[in-house]
């Protein structure tokens, strides 16, 4: 399935009942140099819109919201020691976590790559 995007500047690769999630290249640029990422624990459950992770840049902390309702089933351990991976590779090596999808209807609100591009142009 093609990559999808949330209005909260996350990308999602949906595969069956799971989604791999990270923040977009655009979000990475807005945040600047990332020095720490507080990831959720495996097994933790979230509702769509909950605070699920925190990204710390040199200057400030920014919340990341759960793009879907579900349970975290895997996190990217690389980010604990190498948070700057997200600056270098936000949409590949810098993925944040994999989560199960409780409510597939939430996927309808996600955007395609083209829609997301238009979205960030209209926002900035």
């Amino acid at each position, binding site marked *: 399935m093609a990559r999808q995007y949330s*209005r*909260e*500047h996350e990308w999602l690769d949906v595969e069956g009942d799971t989604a791999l999630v990270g923040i977009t290249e655009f*979000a990475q640029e*807005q*945040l*600047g*140099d990332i*020095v*720490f990422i*507080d990831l959720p624990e495996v097994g933790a459950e979230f509702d769509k*819109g*909950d605070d699920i992770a*925190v990204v*710390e*840049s*040199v*200057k*400030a*902390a*920014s*919340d990341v*919201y759960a793009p879907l309702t579900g349970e975290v089933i895997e996190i990217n351990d690389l980010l*604990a020691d190498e*948070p700057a991976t997200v600056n270098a590779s936000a949409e590949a090596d810098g993925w944040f976590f994999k989560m199960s999808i409780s409510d597939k209807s939430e996927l309808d609100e996600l955007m395609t790559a083209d829609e997301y591009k238009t979205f960030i142009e209209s*926002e900035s």
Partner: protein
Amino acid sequence: MGAERHFRKWCNAFILLEQRLNTMSVTKQTALFSLHQELGGKMVPFAGYDMPVQYPLGIMKEHLHTRAAAGLFDVSHMGQVELSGDKVEQKLEALLPADVQALKPGRIKYSFFTTEDGGVIDDLMITKDGEGKLFLVINAGCKEGDLAHMRKHLQDVEIVEHNDQGLIALQGPQASAVLSRFAPAAETQGFMSCIFADIDGVNCRVSRSGYSGEDGYEISIPNSDIDRISRLLLAETEVEAIGLGARDSLRLESGLCLYGHELDTETTPVEADIIWAIPKSRRATGGFPGAERILSEITDGPKRICVGIKPEGRAPMREGTALFSGDEQVGTITSGGFGPSAGHPVAMAIIRTDLKEIGTALEAEVRGKRLPCKVADLPFVKQNYYRKPK
């Protein structure tokens, strides 16, 4: 959880801590505004001004570049005030604990206006230009208050705010080599001294001072010439434009207090641990607002004190984070972030004085979790000020 709210949060990520200083509804621009835009500066409101928080280089590289070579900062938002009048030195001493009367022409002292309760109204730099003539640099967010305070208390003193002048800081180990190409006298002028020098045909006030922990200068330039002179300096290979983000991480690593964070009207200079700026003469005579409390705290020790905090892990501990010893809250982080040169998170905090020993283990409550940290020696990175060769 609205998308707009979230988007704003991301975009304003750098300025959340400073927003309370931004009391004006319409932001002003400095004379370097178009230069910032041309350089790709990310502009944010700060203390009523539209200022660059960073350029495309990014805070991390801007910080490291300043420590390795030289960085140019626009600090025109700060207030530049000339005081003149008979016995102005003596009169100013009634508002702050510096030995202004002993200040020699061309020398600069750091000081702070104090409240009757011993708190700090603002910290500032005082330059003696000549007999009965002083030049002050005050914080942007405190300008109006400071001016009103001085107008109220300084009788028969002419107070002129220089909105016609901008201020740039050139900081870093190469700053002297760069500036002396334009103004040769800058090379050997002493730390905390001020000279007037010709830069590209313009008479500029050149102070060997700054707030990065590095050698460097603060240069006051007429608004009409500041863009051109800034471009001349930026054209030198050693110099990069540096935003407010790196200015903050540089001063924090260097253990320098920032008004609104370590300093406010509720915190005494003894608690902020800046009594090095209160000379013996003023400790003996007092005669400044809040002297009674401040002098007794110097003798007996304050109840709480400003210290460095080194988080044990990689998570930064931000301003407002509560610090615990066991179950008891014993202090609060006043500034916190990542130290690019230190290579780890760094913070400053005000804590109970009995816990100030370096190495004392404390816990910080970050997002509901208790994380270990230790009281640390300040500065985190060795200060690198100029010393005149003997």
